[in-house]
C-alpha cells in the first residue's frame, strides 16, 4: 500500500496520541486538524472523541466543522469515527440532552442499564455482519457509558453484548464508526484501521 495521508480532527480533549501512534504504525502520515478545508478535501479523516458529547459538539461548532462533517459523511467520503466520535454521528445522546449531534445516523445514544459496571471498560467480543468489509469479529477494547441499541437500517453492523445487545460498529462504504477503540484493540483493531484506509 502506498503511504496514506490521514487527517485527525482535534475534538478537544480526545486522547489523540494513541490514534496518531496507531496510524504511524500502519505506515500512514497523520496530522491533526481543525480546518474546514481539510474536512472537505482530505481523502481519509478520523473523528476521535472522548469526554462528553456537549463539549465535543461545542468544539466542532466553534471551529465551523459541523456542516462540513455532515456533508462529508453524506457524500460517503472516507471517515473513521471512534468512540464518542461515533456518538457524534447520531442525532444526540442521553448524556447531553438538548445537544444536537451531527445527525448523520438516525438514533440516540443511551446509558447502559442499571446493574452493570459502568463505564464499560475492557475487551468485549464483537460480531460483524457477514458482509462487513472493514469491521470484523473478535475482541475490541471499549471505554463507554452510553451506546446505541438499535442498528440503523442500510448500514452493515457489528454487535456486542453488555447488559443486552448494542451497536459496536457500523459501516457503509468508507464511512465507518466504532464504539470501541480500534487504536487500542491490538492487532484486531489495527487490521480494522488498515482495511478502512484501503477502502478508498
Amino acid at each position, binding site marked *: 500500500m502506498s503511504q496514506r495521508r490521514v487527517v485527525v480532527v482535534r475534538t478537544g480533549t480526545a486522547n489523540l496520541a494513541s490514534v496518531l501512534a496507531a496510524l504511524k504504525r500502519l505506515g500512514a502520515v497523520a496530522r491533526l486538524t481543525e480546518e474546514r478545508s481539510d474536512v472537505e478535501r482530505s481523502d481519509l479523516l478520523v473523528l476521535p472523541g472522548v469526554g462528553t458529547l456537549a463539549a465535543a459538539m461545542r468544539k466542532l461548532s466553534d471551529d465551523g466543522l459541523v456542516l462540513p462533517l455532515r456533508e462529508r459523511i453524506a457524500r460517503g467520503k472516507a471517515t473513521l469515527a471512534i468512540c464518542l466520535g461515533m456518538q457524534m454521528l447520531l442525532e444526540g445522546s442521553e448524556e447531553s440532552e438538548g445537544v444536537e449531534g451531527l445527525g448523520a445516523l438516525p438514533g440516540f445514544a443511551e446509558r447502559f442499564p442499571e446493574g452493570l459496571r459502568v463505564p464499560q471498560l*475492557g475487551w468485549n467480543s464483537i460480531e460483524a455482519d457477514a458482509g462487513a468489509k472493514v469491521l470484523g469479529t473478535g475482541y475490541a477494547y471499549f471505554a463507554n457509558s452510553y451506546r446505541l441499541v438499535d442498528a440503523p437500517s442500510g448500514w452493515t453492523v457489528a454487535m456486542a453484548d453488555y447488559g443486552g445487545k448494542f451497536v459496536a460498529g457500523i459501516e457503509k462504504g468508507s464511512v465507518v464508526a466504532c464504539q470501541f477503540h480500534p487504536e487500542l484493540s491490538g492487532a484486531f483493531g489495527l487490521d480494522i484501521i488498515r482495511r478502512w484506509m484501503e477502502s478508498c
Partner: protein
Amino acid sequence: MLTVRIIPCLDVRDGRVVKGVKFQGLRDAGDPAEQAALYEGQGADEITLLDVSATPEGRGAALETVARVREQLSVPLTVGGGVRGVGDAQALLSAGADKVGINTAAVENPELIVEMAERFGSQCTVLAIDAWKDDTGRFEVITHSGKKRTGIDAIEWARRAAILGAGEILLTSWDRDGTKSGYDLDLISRIAAAVEVPIIASGGAADASHMADAVKAGASAVLAASIFHYGEYTVARLKDELSGMGIEVRR
C-alpha cells in the same frame, strides 16, 4: 461478553523499570517500552505504568517513557504516580497515556476528581486507593506510598470518588502487597458493593486462583507485577489457567 482484564504493572523510576528482570528475547530488561511490548505480545489486556520517581528530573523522564511505550503499544496504557493536578494529567495524556491514575492528590483535594472527569471524561479518570485493615478491622486509606495514615474509611472514599466522577478504582491492599498471599477479598467485595464503576484488584497475587477469587469477589480486572517480572507466569499461561477455572478472558 466483557472479559476480565489482566494488567501487568511496570514500576518506573527515572525512565527505567524498577525490579526489571531478564526475559528471553529482551535486549534490556530495564526498558519499559520493550517490557510493555513483550507483555502485549503475551496477551496483556492493558498496561499500567507507575512512576515512582522522586525528583522533577525523574518526572520528565517519565513523560519520555510514556511516549516511547505509546509508540510500541496497541493496547490501553494507564499511567499513575505523582500526579498533582490537571496539568500533570494533561501532560501524560499528550505523551500517550489513555488513562491517568490519581491517588494522594485526590485525597488531599477531592475536587481534582471532578476537574479530571469534566475535562477528560470519567473513563480516563482512575482513582488509585491504597488501603489497609486497621486493628479494628476497618479499611483505612493510606497515602504517600503507604507512609501516611489518613483516618479516611476506604469504602466511603470509593463511594464518594465514584460520585465525583472517578470512572475506575485501582484498589491496592497495602497489607497484602508483596506477600503473595492473595488479594484482600473482603476489601474488594465491600468496595464492589459500594460503587458501580469497575474495580482493578491489586496487591498480593501469586497465582491464577488468587485472580479468579478476586473476580468472584467483584473485581473487573486484576493487576500484578512481580509474578510477571520474575517470569513465574506469562500472561498467556495465566489466561489459560483462568479460562480453565471458568473465567472469561480474551485469548
